[in-house]
């Protein structure tokens, strides 16, 4: 048995009458990419937010590294090792690439409460940041402000920030959203190499990327997991083809 890093067990969340997550169960195991797919409004981001601690589930249980995280907030879960990227790019716009990643390194090391030394003059910190910048293929862009980056670069900056946390699991919400074909290919290559560093729960709409990357896929529809399995199982699943892959594949 491979080790389970993250376990979502029977989690439900309603917004008024809308059941955004309805008894969702899934797990994330060491070394894998587990893709979570489903149409818009299926509840994918809502699930990610509950795992990250931004939303509290109405019922159910979330375990990370074998521990029930119900009592922990976003900050504590991040410190435990949840590295997260947002569906809508969330980087510090006025900061440069280097400052953004240094912020993440500081967070990981817990060294933010220093008032007089320079944030960018600590070699150990900036070296750690530059390493992740290189890995996210942003080498040479350190001094560019995040607001001046191209869309795809900003998404990779988010990834660099998540990497800098040295997380035990990645939660990536549509890291390829809005990217062109080249960007998707580049990000696919990056994520492919990451799974051995920490498993990835990947929400993604780009099916080529999902089929290329995923070890397992879960399909969410109207808040419910309607199928879960390997790439081949999901491709062949009749309900999935009807509900999600739709006409496109039937043709």
């Amino acid at each position: 048995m491979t080790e389970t890093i993250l376990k979502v067990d029977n989690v439900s969340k309603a917004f008024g009458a809308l059941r955004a997550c309805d008894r969702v169960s899934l797990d994330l195991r060491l070394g894998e990419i587990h893709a979570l797919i489903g149409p818009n409004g299926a509840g994918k981001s809502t699930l990610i937010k509950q795992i990250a601690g931004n939303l509290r589930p109405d019922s159910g249980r979330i375990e990370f590294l074998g521990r029930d995280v119900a009592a922990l907030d976003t900050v504590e879960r991040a410190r435990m090792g949840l590295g997260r990227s947002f569906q809508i790019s969330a980087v510090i716009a006025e900061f440069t690439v280097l400052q953004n990643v240094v912020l993440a390194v500081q967070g990981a090391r817990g060294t933010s409460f220093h008032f007089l030394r320079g944030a960018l003059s600590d070699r150990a910190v900036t070296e750690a940041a530059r390493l992740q910048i290189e890995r996210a293929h942003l080498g040479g862009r350190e001094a560019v402000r995040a607001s001046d980056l191209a869309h795809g670069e900003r998404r990779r900056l988010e990834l660099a920030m998540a990497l800098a946390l040295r997380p035990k699991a990645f939660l990536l919400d549509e890291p390829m959203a809005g990217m062109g074909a080249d960007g998707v290919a580049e990000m696919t290559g990056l994520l492919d190499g990451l799974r051995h560093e920490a498993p990835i729960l990947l929400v993604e709409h780009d099916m080529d990327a999902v089929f290329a990357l995923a070890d397992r896929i879960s399909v969410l529809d109207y808040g419910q997991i309607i199928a879960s399995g390997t790439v081949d199982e999901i491709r062949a699943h009749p309900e999935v083809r009807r509900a999600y892959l739709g006409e496109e594949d039937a043709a």
Partner: protein
Amino acid sequence: MGRETLLNAAIALGLVAVPVWAHLAGEPFIITLTTKAVILALAGVGLNIALGHGGLISFGHAAYFGLGGYAAGILAHHAQTFTPLMSAPFIIEGTKFMPVIWLVAVIVAGLAALVIGALSLRTSGVYFIMITLAFGQMLFFFAISWPAYGGEDGLVIYVRNEFPGLNTLDPIQFFALCYVILGLALWFSHRFGRSPFGLALNAARQNAERVQTVGIRPFRLRLTAFVISGMITGLAGALFADLNRFVSPSMLSWQTSGEIMIFIILGGVGRLYGPVAGAALFIALEHFLGGVSDYWLVFVGALLLLVVLFARGGIIGTLAGREVAHD
């Protein structure tokens, strides 16, 4: 050297040149006026930590300014009337010794900022502005209605407090003292802005959720910044009391809070020398326009409007352009 550095150096030099000229020309009033600008700039440097770096729109910084002022006034009052500040359980005497007064001012202002910050930082936006204003007004009315220290009439410091090796009654020497303190505060503010803490605080202003996801708690950053901010403004209050040799509840009024905020907006929010440029301009306008018309504040209002509408970076932003991030 960047444009902003040059501009800052010019402002720093100008602030020395004016009183030195006034000293040689025998114009002590101009020295006092410049000293006032320097002290108010210091109050602004304090607020700039919360407002500029932290994005915390405190409309109640008069509280710390006034507490610093009252710390100076009350300690001097007990020293000059030879009555102890407290006699039970142990005796605490007043003092005319500035370093002790400053220490007390900074601690009192810092503690007040800790309590007020801990309560008001649970809110944000307009609520934060209102709650900080409310705390400021509470202290204002408390000072007015507390007769022991002059109530509405305030407290007079008969002779300016003392600093070893200096004759603080000499305007140019008192100016030099205030100028050095402003310089130290600016040095701190500069280092602070570039420190790991400054980085995290500025990040939390722009995107608090992002800061949480890297494992840093915005509330702790903000509260710490708020306390440091209050301490610096409190120190300015103690100097202001000594400048005027007088403390009154007006130091605690919301108008004072507004003025400190105006310095920052005029000078450039978050810019190192923003509060200095803003306070200097404000005092210059008060001096020149105040002599011409009683409605000089209307001009300040119009200027403020122009800055907010057309020159968001204030004086520093307009003259020096966008801040350089790093190379």
